[in-house]
């Protein structure tokens, strides 16, 4: 038996994985009201563990390793935490705590029953999602990662249909079947890798893998499968109805956290398992899908009538963002993907998206709770009634836009630098244009929310202050990420955030966003458009509307099952082909 069990602080990794699961099991055992108490007790503990891991990682200055049972790979399983994993662990712990604060109001057990279905299920599934994500981040074994992915799916699916309506059940079933399809493809890839190299351990595989038939097929299949689980366009078949129909506290979990699991795994595969198999062309394809997701997702988001669906479609767009980093991390001289500015930028994007998107869904949920509806056109007066909620929504939007002080700003800066450095100017356009799209729907919502209302606003229900505060906290956290990230990052990135150039850029994004919102929204944004302003803009508006309708139709077509599943296989084939031939430039 091996004596060494890895680095000193490695045991913390096992604890971080186990804590949510043990919490979940205890919740099942105790039942009733105790479920919520156990879950809420786990949250600060988990956050403390994540902080502990961060401190240990900073102190040791190297990847934390823990050998389970003392058995070294390839026979045993190792848990590992590098910078990517540590950042994600911390972000997820923070978001889970925020969501926990928010959900206390929505998922409290009613006073007249011993145990309610919704509360029991929600808190336990939240714990399950958390444990599964921690496992995804720290597991160093491809099969354990498969089990973790399945855990994530089994916990995510019931969250979709917690409300129990027919539409959410349909969404859940689509999600389940499509996700299963994706995980089988992932497992198939892992099996091929074992057949080729006799191990499933990530570092051992990374050392052994050669660009050949087996590695290429495995990478193509696994990537396609994981993209299906991440819901990258055009594989977002299940995402909008699922995220738009679930209760807000569940949507926040699904949108901010669950999709990050499979995204993270793509990152691991491309960057750590098979960086040498990846080709320039395949990375371009991945980011190209991302760019399409940004355009289609944003345009369709702008055409939604309901706030929650708007936020759900904006998730489709944001997922696109997360994949822009791949070609930028490609080192053309060595034909290999490398850790560097681009991957850090991508990671930072994921973290700020997790926090901001959770905040956005929470705010949307609060609006829904207060008004009894979430029709964007009827939001007038809400800014006065729920100032904190609207502020949280706007701050989250600003954080997503990537304007000056936010984490996403740093991320965008890193990616822009990487794009400049590698001469891939076209991604600069996508990065800047994407920000304008994000600005557009913030403007759209804000425009509606700030409008004065003639009659007094009817509030159906008083919203919980704590929930509002939780949303605000996460939004502010996303903005403040810039400060937190500055420590380990080079200082020149934020040399002068208030310089005229930066301000002009911000203004440009905002103005672009406003124009997009004006042109693309379904209902005219301004309540009574002045004829003078409307006349010259008429033709542009017509063109924009046509674009909007085209995107909507494309979205509906792509989200048909036969199209999506064929798309999945076609993508796998395309990736395979590009991995084979794409060793150019």
């Amino acid at each position, binding site marked *: 038996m091996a004596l060494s069990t890895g680095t000193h602080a490695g045991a913390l990794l096992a604890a971080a994985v186990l804590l949510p699961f043990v919490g979940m099991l205890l919740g099942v055992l105790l039942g009733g009201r105790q479920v919520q108490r156990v879950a809420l007790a786990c949250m600060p503990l988990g956050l403390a563990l994540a902080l502990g891991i961060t401190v240990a990682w900073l102190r040791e200055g190297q990847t934390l390793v823990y050998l389970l049972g003392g058995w070294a790979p390839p*026979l045993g399983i190792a848990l590992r935490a590098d910078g990517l994993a540590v950042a994600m662990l911390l972000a997820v712990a923070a978001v889970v705590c925020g969501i926990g604060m928010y959900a206390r109001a929505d998922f409290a057990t009613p006073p007249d029953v011993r145990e309610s279905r919704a509360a029991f299920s929600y808190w336990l599934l939240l714990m399950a999602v958390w444990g599964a994500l921690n496992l995804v981040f720290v597991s160093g074994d491809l*099969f354990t990662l*498969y*089990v973790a992915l*399945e855990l994530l*799916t*089994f916990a995510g*699916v*019931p969250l979709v*249909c917690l409300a*129990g*309506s*027919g*539409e959410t*059940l*349909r969404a*859940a*079933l*689509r999600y*389940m*079947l499509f996700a*299963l*399809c994706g995980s*089988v493809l992932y*497992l*198939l890839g892992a*099996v091929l890798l*074992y*057949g080729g190299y*006799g191990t499933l351990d990530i570092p051992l595989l990374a050392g052994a893998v050669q660009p050949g038939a087996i590695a290429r097929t495995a990478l193509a299949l696994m990537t396609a499968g994981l993209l299906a689980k991440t819901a990258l366009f055009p594989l977002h078949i299940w995402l909008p*109805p699922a995220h738009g129909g679930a209760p807000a506290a569940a949507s926040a979990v699904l949108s901010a956290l669950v999709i990050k699991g499979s995204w993270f795994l793509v990152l691991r595969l491309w960057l750590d398992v098979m960086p040498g198999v990846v080709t320039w062309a395949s990375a371009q394809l991945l980011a190209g899908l991302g760019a399409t997701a940004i355009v289609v997702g944003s345009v369709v988001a702008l055409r*939604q*009538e*309901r706030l929650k*669906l708007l936020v759900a479609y904006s998730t489709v767009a944001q997922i696109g963002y997360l994949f822009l980093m791949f070609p930028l991390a490609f080192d053309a001289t060595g034909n290999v993907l490398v850790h560097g500015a681009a991957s850090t930028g991508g990671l930072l994007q994921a973290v700020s998206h997790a926090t901001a998107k959770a905040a956005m869904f929470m705010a949307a949920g609060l609006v829904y709770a207060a008004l009894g509806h979430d029709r964007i056109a009827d939001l007038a007066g809400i800014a006065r009634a729920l100032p904190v909620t609207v502020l949280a929504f706007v701050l989250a939007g600003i954080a997503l836009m990537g304007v000056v002080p936010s984490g996403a700003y740093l991320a965008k800066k890193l990616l822009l630098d990487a794009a400049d450095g590698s001469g891939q100017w076209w991604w600069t356009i996508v990065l800047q244009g994407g920000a304008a799209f994000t600005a557009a729907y913030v403007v759209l919502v804000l425009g509606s929310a700030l409008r004065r209302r003639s009659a007094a606003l009817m509030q159906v229900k008083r919203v919980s202050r704590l929930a509002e505060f939780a949303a605000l906290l996460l939004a502010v956290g996303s903005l403040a990420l810039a400060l937190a990230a500055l420590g380990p990052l080079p200082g020149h990135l934020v040399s002068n955030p208030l310089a005229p150039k930066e301000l002009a850029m911000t203004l440009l994004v905002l103005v672009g966003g406003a124009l997009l919102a004006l042109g693309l929204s*379904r209902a005219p944004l301004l309540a009574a458009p002045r004829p003078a302003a409307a006349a010259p803009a008429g033709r542009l508006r017509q063109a924009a509307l046509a674009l909007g309708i085209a995107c*909507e139709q494309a979205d*509906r077509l792509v*989200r*048909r*099952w*036969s199209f999506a*599943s*064929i798309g999945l*296989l076609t993508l796998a084939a395309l990736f395979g082909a590009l991995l084979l031939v794409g060793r150019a430039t």
Partner: protein
Amino acid sequence: MNVETLFALCACALVGIGLYGLIVQPHPLRKLVAFNIMGSGVFVLFGALAKRGAAAGMAADPVPQALLITAIVVAFAATAVTVAVLLRLIESTATASLANEPPSGE
């Protein structure tokens, strides 16, 4: 041809057959059956690889076989969850269609 290659090739075909069913069969239950066939194809492939790895007096590599047991149980859990969702959908809407929701505003 030895038995492991035979079954490995057979497994490749099973994966393809399962994929086909997953795409073209409209009913969710049929998709689920197809998923199980595709999954079993992957399992048989893994089993054939285990047989290839026979060494050290063992008739097959025990690691993939142990993983297979886990994978079979996980696939069963997946089937159970999917069936439960499907039955609940039928119960509450009397349909099992996976078609898109009607466009908003209509």
